[in-house]
């Protein structure tokens, strides 16, 4: 089977406007989750990871009055990823895939200055396509919290089919009162910054971000490390629409399909979904253990950037690619004490390490699970 390579990437978040800035802040142990007055909840203070407004609007790529906040984030992210790399956005062999959970959900409030159809996710994708003069119909994937990981899996499959040369996978979501109220009424928001897998965890923190990962079937120009998306799959729990499976069944199946006939020894570390909710993190620990992966180093990156919904799978995959490229395992921020019934080998301090592959996992409402194997290219077939 032909290989699919990462050829460019970008992250825009509370911790920076490119991947390098995000990666440096994260390795330095800085979290972007802060107390904010932009949003309120009946219980009081809100912690979230938010993108700096002034810096976003100062972006030279567009007139900010013509684009919604999410569109600004995604357009900036794609520009930052592709500009100067030789990737031709207007090429008929370039496909744009958009991963978003709630899209322009902030426009649901009456009085929006934008035309009514901007609320639709397909319209957001249309705006992005038009901005970049891309000739192909963009593909929009919205499958809850696994959207980003699933978009990478879809991109890999489309590239293997040979129809496109380059697939630009972009994703994002913004924090809105709607999303915050929703997770809060489910008692899924931690009043303090989230602490994935920790004994004291009480829920997630929301984050807004955009990410872009550009994939191609053509090997990138010479560089120290070439990264490939070696494999990927999804599986449904078929159990409950909002609660994760207690046995980790769907995640287990997805991991088994993604690893295929590879030995678990090939997995250098796991980048978990790790939202910080009691049930998600517990379910993941059970699934990892059942797959024989419970001794693998594990991190969740949500302690740095919060749960960024449609961006999560993309930006966490990018940071995991950089972990492999830079030979640096990232600490699981917010973790200090075992908080799952199965002990995991949590990464408690960022440190240099040489690893060959990362298993990235995502799980979400609707019983969805998706996993990918991100690997140093060395001829995996």
């Amino acid at each position, binding site marked *: 089977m032909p290989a699919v390579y990462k050829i460019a990437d970008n992250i825009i978040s509370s911790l920076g406007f490119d991947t390098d800035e995000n990666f440096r802040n994260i390795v330095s142990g800085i979290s972007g989750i802060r107390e904010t007055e932009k949003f309120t909840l009946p219980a009081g203070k809100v912690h979230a990871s938010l993108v700096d407004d002034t810096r976003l609007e100062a972006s030279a790529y567009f007139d900010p009055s013509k684009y919604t906040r999410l569109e600004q984030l995604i357009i900036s992210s794609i520009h930052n990823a592709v500009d100067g790399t030789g990737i031709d956005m207007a090429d008929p062999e370039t496909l744009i895939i958009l991963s978003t959970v709630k899209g322009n*959900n902030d426009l649901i409030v009456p009085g929006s200055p934008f035309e009514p159809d901007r609320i639709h996710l397909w319209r957001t994708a249309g705006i992005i396509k038009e901005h970049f003069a891309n000739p192909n119909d963009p593909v929009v994937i*919205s499958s809850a919290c696994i959207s980003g990981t699933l978009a990478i899996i879809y991109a890999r499959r489309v590239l*293997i089919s040979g129809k496109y040369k380059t697939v630009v996978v972009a994703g994002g979501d913004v924090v809105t009162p709607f999303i915050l109220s*929703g997770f809060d009424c489910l008692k899924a928001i931690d009043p303090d910054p989230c602490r994935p897998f920790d004994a004291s965890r009480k829920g997630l923190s929301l984050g807004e971000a955009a990410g872009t990962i550009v994939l191609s079937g053509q090997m990138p120009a010479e560089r120290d490390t070439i990264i490939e998306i070696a494999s990927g799959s999804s599986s449904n729990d078929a159990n409950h*629409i909002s609660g994760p499976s207690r046995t980790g069944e769907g995640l287990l199946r997805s991991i088994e399909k993604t690893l295929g006939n590879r030995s678990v020894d090939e997995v250098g570390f796991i980048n978990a979904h790790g939202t910080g909710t009691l049930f998600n993190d517990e379910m993941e620990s059970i699934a990892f253990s059942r797959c024989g992966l419970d001794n693998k180093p594990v991190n969740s990156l949500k302690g740095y950037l919060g749960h960024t919904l449609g961006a999560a799978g993309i930006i966490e995959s990018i940071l995991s690619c950089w972990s492999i490229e830079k030979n640096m395992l990232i600490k699981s921020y917010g973790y200090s004490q075992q908080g799952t019934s199965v002990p995991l080998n949590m990464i408690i301090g960022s440190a240099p390490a040489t690893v060959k592959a990362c298993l990235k996992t995502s799980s979400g409402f609707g019983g969805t699970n998706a996993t990918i194997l991100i690997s140093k290219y060395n001829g995996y077939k």
Partner: protein
Amino acid sequence: MVISDLNPEYCSIRDGVVTVNGNILYADNHQEGDEPFIIKAYRSLGISYPKFFKMDSLSKTGFLAAELLLKGTATDNQELKSNIAVILMTGNASLDTDLNFQSTIDNPAAYFPSPSIFVYTLPNIMLGEICIRFKITGEGIVFIDREINGTVLYEYIDTLFTDGITDSCLFGWVDYLNGKAEAFISVIHKDMITQSFNQHSFNSFIQRTFRTSNHQH
């Protein structure tokens, strides 16, 4: 290539008419004060699945189409169903339920967000409901597009078959907004693939079975 060679089973819900393989199972005769169309269709078709009543309208619509297609047809085979890939597309996604949820938080004096509404503010919950009903544990994806996009559906199904990821796909379109329910769900198996399975025959199949189904009454 003979277009009619590609002839999978399907269920269509459109303009108040429910059909399976072109046969009308239910046609709405709307009267003032009636229950919503999807609920009336459910009751009249003798389906018994109490969870139906807690679903939002999008999930009800998708569930009804999948139920009518998968129950009592050639695809009623549990082994097949557990590994089938589910590929759904929607235009309005969860907007109908989003508006409902927003109305519970709009007014600070009447702020009462409901968890049972919020969980349905994701378009893939309908996929989850179908998976729960039929114990489907295979691949799943929800695409968003303005209308049913045969190109995206065909390319993905073809890729899944070619790469050996699955042998069968439940696919289609489910949409709901402001009382307007639409669904088109079909199942295609790898062994149905012959020379006739291509982009053209696939689009023709959608065209003649779904896009034109509102002319049948």
